[in-house]
């Protein structure tokens, strides 16, 4: 009897241990866990990943029309002999930086700096890598006065037809239009604990559930984790999160692998593929076939026929 008890106890302990070790894996995490992890202070941001991935990096500043936005980092880096333009939302690594970077919420000049650097990259046939980590674009007076809506709209238009490879990585919070403003490319990846959504769960809870305290329920309902977005076909793949250095290594491997592939293709082909991919997103009933008309439009253009 004592032996039997001992055996049951042993099995229970083993079961619990296996549960605990499984728990370290991402499958067990709730959407809300991911929301919290994606926002956690101390999580590596765009600047940290850029410095871990690049052999050398030179930051470039300013949008050439109004100012320089510290909430958007941009510049040219070298990765194993390649020159790459890096663009990323910047939240800052400590409280002081958080404040100066406006917690990663860009003003129009941030998006216009990103646009300038993307066009510069296109001119020199340099690929672009974007790191997305923002709660959203900044909803303030100056931001509106200087046309935050127009700035994001322009980025969506230009990035979707940029004639150079663009890789996007959502490394933390992918917050709405502010994330999309540097989030259109040939490939879109998410770190496993990153989130991507049309509005914050808090916003969703207060508007649709009429109760701001229901953010946790909102996060589940919104289907905003990397696994959901992969299932929806919005992202290409999920990058596993390990130590910051290991994660940076995985991102770097992805960048090198993709650029080896994409840089060998004519830029016009990349754009055609990018436009087709974007064109196909959406769920409607009673919609007619869109593929053929799009090809007909391509045939009417100089660049994409």
């Amino acid at each position, binding site marked *: 009897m004592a032996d039997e008890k001992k055996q049951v106890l042993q099995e229970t302990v083993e079961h619990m241990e296996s549960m605990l070790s499984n728990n370290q894996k991402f499958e067990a995490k709730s959407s809300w866990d991911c929301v919290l992890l994606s926002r956690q202070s101390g999580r590596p941001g765009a600047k940290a990943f850029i410095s871990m991935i690049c052999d050398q990096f030179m930051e470039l500043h300013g949008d050439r029309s109004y100012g320089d936005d510290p909430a958007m980092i941009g510049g040219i880096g070298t990765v194993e002999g390649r020159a790459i333009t890096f663009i990323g939302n910047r939240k800052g690594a400590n409280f002081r930086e958080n404040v100066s970077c406006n917690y990663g919420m860009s003003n129009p000049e941030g998006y216009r700096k990103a646009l300038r650097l993307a066009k510069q990259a296109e001119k020199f046939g340099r690929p672009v890598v974007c790191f997305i980590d923002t709660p959203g*674009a900044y*909803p*303030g*007076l100056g*931001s*509106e006065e*200087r*046309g*935050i*809506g*127009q700035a*994001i*709209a*322009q980025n*969506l*238009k*230009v990035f*979707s*037809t940029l004639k150079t490879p663009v890789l996007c990585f959502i490394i933390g919070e992918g917050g*709405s*239009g502010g994330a*999309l*403003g540097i989030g*259109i490319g040939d490939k879109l990846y998410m770190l496993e604990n990153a989130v*991507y*959504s*049309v*509005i914050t769960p808090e916003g*969703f809870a207060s*508007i*649709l559930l009429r109760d701001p305290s229901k953010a946790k329920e909102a996060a589940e*309902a*919104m*289907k*905003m984790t990397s696994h*959901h*977005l992969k299932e*929806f076909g*919005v992202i290409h793949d999920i990058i596993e999160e390990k130590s910051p250095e290991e994660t940076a290594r995985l991102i770097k491997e992805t960048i090198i692998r993709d650029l080896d592939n994409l840089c060998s293709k004519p830029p016009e082909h990349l754009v055609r593929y*990018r*436009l087709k991919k*974007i*064109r196909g*997103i*959406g*769920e*409607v*009933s*009673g*919609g*007619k076939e*869109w593929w053929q*008309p*799009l090809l*007909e*439009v391509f045939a*009417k*253009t100089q*660049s*994409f026929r």
Partner: protein
Amino acid sequence: MSNEVLKRCPQCQKDVQVGEHKICPYCNYHLPLTVAERLALFADEGSFKEMSSGMRSMNPISLAGYEEKLKENQKKSSLSDAVTIGRCTIGGKPVVVGIMSFAFMGGSMGSVVGEKITQAMVEGALTGDPVVLFTASGGARMQEGIFSLMQMAKTASTAALLEETRTPLFLVLTNPTTGGVTASFAMLGDVILAEPGAIIGFAGPRVIEGTIGEKLPEGFQRSEFQLEKGFIDSIVERKKLKETLSFLIETHTRRA
């Protein structure tokens, strides 16, 4: 077109006789127009042929209550979704039009709105006819989650294609035009017009007030403000709409 209906003006709260253009005589508030009323302002009578009228929203993130909400709005507004697209003529010239309706779920852009706006632009690109889009929207349709955000990418990337095919894209922003619609196709017209007094912006006024902790200045985000800041080309009165669009179409139509 409804004539001389007694209504309470939502802006100045006075009971007013709104004439055929549905404008408050006291405060110049432009009341929302139905699709038919909007068409009557500029389209040649009887020329409108609707496109993709059978398209309906689905529930891509399986959100509880969304399907009921759609049905309720369809019943209440007699619209199938928040945009109506089609072809018509203006002074005999063919155009493709898209008219958004704030009455349907706040004019929010989900997959159907994104797809129809895109189809309208593609139709313009294929025929060479100008595309005229009337916006009225609170932004992305949250009930469709990430799929609604992606409609911004879809409409904006199609606007990029219109550059390549040299298809004219004219926007008329009506009250209100905010959020994801502003941050995508609404700001990408070759010419951007707006109705007087319309709220035009990215973040809604309440969100901004929440951020800055104070009331917004008078006239903030209105058409007149956007004209002053350089984000729209012109403010157009309803009675001048047909004349203005005719001029733009005339000056942009390709000649062989």
